[in-house]
């Protein structure tokens, strides 16, 4: 009987562990999966937007926390937006970020990605996973992921490329937009930016 319980415990423990990957292991797994797909898919290498978007949708986006990202980009202006506005903002910002991310992915050319050991204590709920993209002739470019533990597993809330946060880089712009036209002004600017990118994309199918 005791053995049975022990077995049960181990079984339970291993299933939990399997579900809950460590943040760095999770980044590594997803990165490798995405790169493998890009390497095999000639359409994506040629810049097929639709296929890239599908890949990002399926593999990458579930691991991003766009609410937190939008709040981070808004900074002290975030509470100025009401719940409805926050929702719209998150949606528009998500569209913009996803687009940038997809474009970045489409420029991938066989660079080697190196994963750095995670520096975090056992109980940390907020960690930075560090990776490096290596290419000959230039210094390696770091890509760091700010990740937090949520009930739904580890989620990315910041992506920092070569020291530049793709999220907080918007803060001054958002500040200025809100200073000039309020939260609604910012929503309008984001929406029109997304629309113009949309029409650009359909104008020259790439």
């Amino acid at each position, binding site marked *: 009987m005791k053995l049975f319980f022990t077995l049960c415990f181990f079984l339970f423990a291993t299933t939990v562990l399997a579900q809950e990957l460590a943040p760095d292991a999770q980044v590594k797994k997803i990165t490798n999966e995405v790169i493998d797909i890009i390497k095999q898919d000639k359409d994506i290498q040629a810049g097929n937007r639709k296929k890239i978007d599908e890949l990002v949708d399926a593999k990458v986006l579930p691991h991003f926390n766009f609410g937190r990202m939008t709040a981070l980009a808004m900074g002290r202006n975030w509470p100025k937006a009401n719940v409805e506005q926050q929702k719209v903002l998150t949606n528009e910002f998500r569209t913009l970020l996803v687009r*940038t991310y997809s474009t970045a992915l489409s420029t991938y050319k066989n660079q080697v990605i190196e994963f750095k050991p995670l520096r975090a204590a056992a109980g940390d709920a907020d960690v930075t996973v560090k990776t490096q993209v290596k290419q*000959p002739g230039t210094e390696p470019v770091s890509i760091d992921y700010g990740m937090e533990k*949520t009930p739904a597993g580890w989620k990315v809330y910041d992506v920092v490329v*070569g*020291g530049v946060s793709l999220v*907080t880089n918007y803060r001054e712009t958002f500040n200025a937009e809100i200073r000039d036209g309020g939260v609604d002004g910012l929503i309008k600017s984001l929406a029109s*930016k997304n629309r113009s990118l949309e029409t650009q994309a359909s104008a020259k199918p790439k």
Partner: protein
Amino acid sequence: MNIMLRRFLGLSLLTALVGLGGCATTGGTPGDPLEGYNRAMFGFNEGVDKAIIKPVASGYKTVMPEFARTGVTNFFANLGDLWIGINNILQGKVGAGVSDFGRFAMNTTVGILGLFDVASNAGLEKHNEDFGQTLGRWGVGSGAYVVLPILGPSSVRDGISLLALDWRGDPLWYVGNIPTRNELVGVRAVDNRANLLDLSRLAEEAALDHYAYVRDAFLQRRRSLIYDGDPLPEPDPAKTSESGESKDTAALAESELPPAQIITQWGERVITAADEELTPAQEFSGAAAQPVAARPEAAGVSGAAYEPRIPSNYEALLAVSGEVHDGLARISLRPR
């Protein structure tokens, strides 16, 4: 021709700094007192880029096979390693500096005049250093953000370093035959631009306000480079105080989560009230206010141990670097 160009650039920078530095801060973005001039110059640079530089770079990228372009990039990158090494040593990172000289030796010989970056494959990574970063490492503040004519985003500190010193550490300027030298400088510029085509497209796509996006990316990038990817908490008051707040509100918005912790990597070295008052210009003039001290090792962060920013023997190192520089001048390709 190039001396003329450099004088023109230097003069424009000086005019920009003297003329506009005085009547700065008329509203606008805090931390960008020269915004009016900067936006105008940014627009001018964009125009020149669109009309001349970008088309040439795109053509170059289309015409040249990839391996040839990599060779060109490697060739110029190799020449840059000497100055990078000197700056690493000036910053007290002797190991990195030695590695840079090792790279130069290896790539120049085994890598056939630098066309192949064999050193990277051998584990000697390329670094990114310049004199502006060295000054930053010594505690000199960046000063206001400045967009230089043609050369693009910079700061008072980095712009002066670039125009006064960095070109002296650039072996291309020691090529005696002026037309050849100009051609080399031109090819390098085109090659650099070609390498940035994807990135510039990305920035254009991502930005709501292209000027602000490039500016803020540049400032973040420089801050990160000075500390080799491990920057101190940002000195910008708005950003530091906000990031804490926004993290909390974000956490609240998702209610089940505890408020996110804000742990700076260097424990006590959080931004003090005094730091928050500093504008970039004040930061620049009051450079000495920034302590030279290393990050407190007491913070107990493993692997974050840092050398002091100024090596104790830096005067000797300066002298050595001067000799290296003179040596470089002597062995230059100048016809005798």
